[in-house]
């Protein structure tokens, strides 16, 4: 522990790299197997069996899909705007993954005498024992999730195809309108917590989850998140029946796979964020005595929410576009505004 770089112990850097690797690999694996789980779960909900023939009960299906997509031909339409066309999948993918940096996935564990908070962008000041994390974590997540729209809009525009453009336009309109109510609904949470730091928000939920204090905000946020990541019943940007494949119509091979991964990574992030803000994150019984239980609780909550997403996909049909806008602007936003006012009034009365 003697060596120091820029005033920080060597252990700090090792822990950082380890946390980044663990979180990244976790998200990647979850993304890969979320596709498999989705196909299996929806299959069984439709009284089918889903993938069965690659490996035992189709367990190797994500790998087969990945290898297949990898070896597909890359097609760039001759009329496409090449640079934007190539850039768009990256812009969609990167924000989807880096959002995970501020989500706390566990408490503080101690490795070789050095305390590590299980959140990628945070560390413990060894002198004061205080946890430092991004104190505007929730804002950072909102910012990154709105960056994801650029990838989709750019993909839709750069493809120079009517279907893609329509998909891109729909995606942008939908994401912007639902981001408003998603942002407004979590304002109520910040009014309770008094902070934007996600690790602090999780710590405050050690006794009672915010989902019980803010049930309306919880429902609103989850529904708006579904709309924001373009999942059923809000998957209009890639409505196969009307828009072929929406903004990724012209994409093939790995670039298509990147959009696909971004979509599922967004689902993981949104579920992780919902779990963090409303379901107590990594908090759970006995977590104070066994710190390693934290990640277990966290993963369990995230997977439960992801199961719920898939369950919804198996149940609900797609919204019509005007219904979508009606729901976003005339139901979600007023409800979240009312929620803020009510929270404020009750908070004032209790004080």
């Amino acid at each position: 522990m003697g060596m120091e770089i820029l005033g920080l112990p060597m252990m700090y850097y090792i822990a950082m790299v380890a946390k980044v690797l663990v979180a990244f690999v976790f998200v990647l694996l979850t993304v890969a197997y979320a596709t498999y789980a989705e196909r299996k779960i929806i299959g069984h909900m439709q009284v089918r069996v889903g993938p069965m023939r690659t490996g035992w009960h189709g367990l190797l299906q994500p790998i087969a899909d990945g290898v297949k997509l990898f070896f597909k031909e890359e097609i760039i339409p001759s009329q496409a705007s090449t640079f934007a066309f190539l850039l768009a999948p990256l812009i969609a993918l990167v924000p989807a993954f880096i959002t995970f940096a501020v989500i706390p996935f566990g408490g503080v564990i101690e490795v070789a005498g050095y305390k590590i908070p299980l959140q990628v962008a945070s560390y413990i000041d060894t002198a004061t024992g205080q946890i430092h994390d991004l104190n505007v974590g929730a804002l950072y997540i909102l910012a990154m999730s709105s960056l994801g729209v650029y990838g989709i809009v750019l993909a839709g525009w750069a493809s120079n195809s009517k279907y893609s453009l329509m998909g891109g336009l729909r995606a942008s309109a939908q994401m912007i309108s639902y981001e408003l109510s998603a942002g407004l609904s979590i304002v109520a949470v910040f009014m309770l917590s008094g902070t934007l730091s996600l690790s602090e928000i999780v710590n405050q939920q050690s006794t009672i989850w915010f989902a019980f204090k803010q049930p309306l905000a919880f429902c609103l946020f989850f529904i708006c998140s579904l709309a924001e990541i373009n999942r059923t019943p809000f998957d209009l940007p890639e409505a196969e029946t009307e828009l072929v494949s929406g903004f990724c119509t012209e994409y093939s091979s790995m670039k298509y796979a990147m959009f696909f991964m971004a979509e599922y990574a967004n689902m993981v992030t949104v579920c992780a964020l919902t779990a963090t803000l409303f379901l107590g994150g990594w908090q759970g019984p006995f977590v104070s005595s066994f710190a390693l239980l934290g990640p277990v609780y966290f993963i369990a909550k995230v997977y439960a929410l992801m199961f719920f997403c898939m369950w919804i996909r198996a149940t609900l049909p797609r919204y019509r576009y005007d219904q979508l806008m009606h729901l976003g602007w005339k139901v979600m936003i007023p409800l979240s505004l009312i929620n803020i006012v009510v929270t404020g009034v009750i908070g004032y009365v209790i004080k």
Partner: protein
Amino acid sequence: MNPITPIINGLKITLSHLFKKPVTLQYPDERPNVAQRYRGLHALNVSHNKAKCVACYLCPTVCPAKCITVEAGEDANHDKYAEKYEIDMLRCIFCGYCVEACPVDAIRMTGQFELANFSREDFVFTKERLLEKK
């Protein structure tokens, strides 16, 4: 009307389906139970080691798809028999009229439904291929 209840009812239904036994048949591994009167590939019935067909031409006459070709011949006992009996499976509509029309019960339909082939010629089933396997 309250918009939440139908959604919850729908969620309940899909969840209950999750625990039902899937109806999927793992086809090449599991074989379907072909119904007894299924109309699959034809077979020519055999009696006394030769086809029962007497080349009466009723089946090509009744066939709506005109897929049966019969040519009559005369055997050593001066009996009429089908020298050539071909069914073009690309034209056959599996209506079963040939079986109904046959006065001597010489043709029937089996449960064999896997009739894919690689060339067009292979879809024309000659008399040898149609003779019932014993």
